[in-house]
């Protein structure tokens, strides 16, 4: 089914480290922006500017002064090789430029040439290079083969995070007019219309009406999906995929059922109908802030007391780690609750307080494993203790079903593997690297499938869900294995018994 090689799964839960194949993924690149508006909407030049070399170097200088991470990370690498076998894209493609350090070096060679004494005096000695069209092509190709999952940063003795490097590289490319179509077009819609799909308010209302009917047909209970309700307690901000995509939509139904049974008044916002924030993928502080600002406006406008974020990995990173700084302070919200709060924090708290009636046996046809989404696992937290982002979703799963097993310890928690589609790579023009990048996760999944009969892969990220739906069949898994944590809750919850 593929016009490229798909890795073959073995018996061991961990993939072996491949011998390097230089150039294996050379030339694979996503579509660039061809409609200038997709760049200019974000404040970038519409097309590649004439003096792009100078502009790029100047932008790099600007970013070095703005981000300590970039400056320290570009200086500190000792080429120890610790990260070289940690990236799912390297494991899946064997292309040495997908080793985190080699990916960083694409930017570092330019940093050294233009910003360090050694690189100016003796470029050949320290691997410094002039910025040429060839280098720019490499940037565009390999900085779009990084999902910014931060797995390499876990193992680096200096904590060098390739995500920071690839964000800087993408910001530099955007600043010279070389934007990636998928991310930029979507981000533009989010900033202008309020969601990644460009859904206008009536379309959202229409979808929610349909969901209300579906749930009532299935359960006999009138569960509401409120939109733009002023004075609601909770504003739910969730990835717009939850409104229409499978299996995401079952997660949204799950959130609604939880709110319904717990008697929490909640609402979605048509003005801020997107949890995702692709501004992060570009490393663009301004655009990230613009997208997030809609949410602050909506929360104030609706007069809510809490903001809750649905199942979405990078959305939760932005919400947890960046919102307070970008669009805070949230002094207009109820201080009794963390701002923002993850839907899993809300649900587990309700379960512990006995506010939800869950029948685990309703999920007895499922043997569940949990995929820690990279941005949740390595870039955020849930709850009040470090590692709550691992225990809270699992506790919800255990409260919702009888059969749960974890995958190999080397592939979960902070060592989790990215699904292969994060960081702006969830586009069909990058299918080869998406499929190959999923290899380590698929390998760990195969083991629990064989040993425990796992038939449900739970995730709390819209990108993970879309990505797995697409790549599971390449590895001879059933595509319907993928689902949300709140889909399990939705199945288990006994409506009409508690409210």
């Amino acid at each position, binding site marked *: 089914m593929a016009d490229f090689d798909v890795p073959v799964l073995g018996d061991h839960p961990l993939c072996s480290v491949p011998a390097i194949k230089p150039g294996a993924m050379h030339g694979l690149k996503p579509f660039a922006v061809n409609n200038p508006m997709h760049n200019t909407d974000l404040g970038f030049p519409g097309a590649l500017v004439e003096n792009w070399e100078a502009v790029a170097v100047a932008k790099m200088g600007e970013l070095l002064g*703005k981000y300590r991470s970039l400056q320290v990370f570009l*200086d500190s690498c000792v080429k120890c090789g610790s990260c070289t076998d940690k990236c799912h894209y390297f494991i899946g493609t064997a292309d040495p430029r997908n080793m985190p350090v080699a990916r960083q070096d694409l930017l570092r060679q330019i940093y050294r040439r233009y910003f360090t004494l050694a690189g100016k005096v003796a470029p050949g000695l*320290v691997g410094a290079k002039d910025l040429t069209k060839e280098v720019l092509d490499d940037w565009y190709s390999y900085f779009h083969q990084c999902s910014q999952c931060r797995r390499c940063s876990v193992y680096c003795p200096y904590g060098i995070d390739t995500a920071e490097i690839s964000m800087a590289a993408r910001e530099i490319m955007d600043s010279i007019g070389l934007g990636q179509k998928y991310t930029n077009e979507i981000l533009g819609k989010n900033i202008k219309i309020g969601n990644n799909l460009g859904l206008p308010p009536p379309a959202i209302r229409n979808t929610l009406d349909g969901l209300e009917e579906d749930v009532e047909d299935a359960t006999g209970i009138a569960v509401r999906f409120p939109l733009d309700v002023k004075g609601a307690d909770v504003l739910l901000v969730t990835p717009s995929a939850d409104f229409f995509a499978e299996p995401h939509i079952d997660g949204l139904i799950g959130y609604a059922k939880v709110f319904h049974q717990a008697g929490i008044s909640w609402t979605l916002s048509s003005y801020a109908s997107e949890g995702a924030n692709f501004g992060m993928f570009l490393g663009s502080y301004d655009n990230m802030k613009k997208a997030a600002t809609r949410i602050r406006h909506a929360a104030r406008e609706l007069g809510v007391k809490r903001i809750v974020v649905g199942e979405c990995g990078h959305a939760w990173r932005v919400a947890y780690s960046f919102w307070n700084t970008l669009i805070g302070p949230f002094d207009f919200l109820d201080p009794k609750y*963390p701002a923002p709060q993850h839907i899993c924090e809300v649900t587990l708290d309700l379960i512990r307080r006995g506010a939800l009636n869950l029948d685990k046996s309703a999920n007895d046809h499922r043997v569940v494993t949990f995929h820690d989404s990279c941005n949740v696992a390595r870039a955020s*937290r849930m709850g009040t203790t*470090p590692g709550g982002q691992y225990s809270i979703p699992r506790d919800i799963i255990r409260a919702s079903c009888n059969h749960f097993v974890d995958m190999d310890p080397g592939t979960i928690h902070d060592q989790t593997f990215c699904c292969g589609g994060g960081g702006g790579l969830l586009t069909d023009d990058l299918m080869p690297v998406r499929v190959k990048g999923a290899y380590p996760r698929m390998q760990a999944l195969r083991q629990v499938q064989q040993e425990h009969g796992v038939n449900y892969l739970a995730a709390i990220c819209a990108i993970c869900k879309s990505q797995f739906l697409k790549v599971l069949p390449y590895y001879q898994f059933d595509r319907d294995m993928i689902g949300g944590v709140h889909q399990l809750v939705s199945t288990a919850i006994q409506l009409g018994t508690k409210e």
Partner: protein
Amino acid sequence: MTVVTELYALLFYTAAAILLIGVVRRIVIYARAPAPLRIATMPAPLTRFGVVLRMVREVFFFESLFRSTKWTWMFGVLFHASMALVLMRHLRYFQEPVWFWVAIVQPFGKYAAFGMLAGLAALLARRFLVDRVRYISSPSDYLMLCLLLAIAASGAMMTFVMHTDIVDVKAFFLGLMRFKWQPLPADPLLLLHLALVATLMMVFPISKLLHAPGVFFSPTRNQVDDAREKQHVAPWARDAV
């Protein structure tokens, strides 16, 4: 006063100045660069004290490297710990009277030279033998290891094979520190050792040796997990739209 003494005196003043100014300048650059967003690699400590513990584990025990690859960790620890002992032992050449603990370290520091050599040799072998590490290595990566190997080897030679007049060497360095120059013995091995050390000092601020100060400024390691509780708006970010 011989020409050699004058040459080496000037060399060490220069090297020390470059090292000091270069590293301080870098540290100022790191410290001044803002960290506009919380990017700690999670799970991260919730308190400042927790961060100190995390940094201690990272700096003294190479925690992240340990989780990553046991071989590199072993060679890395062997080299760094041995070098630390060797450096501590060398303090005796810069002080009179010699501190109590420096005297205690002396015998360990002597034999640590072999640990340094073994660790460096293993790290160098990795660069040739592991295809991934070979791919990412620049000439400077090999040269740096060779430089350190040559320093360790020439030093060990003087300790164990061809002794130099160490009392005179100490007098030379104390003289440098007190700006009352004393003659330096013109042993070839000693001169080689000192020239290599001066070279190392001078390349330090423009090379990957910056990982030493850099690790303390690494935002993924030194940040407290407090983003929901505290705002961290960088000065430049106040104007962001």
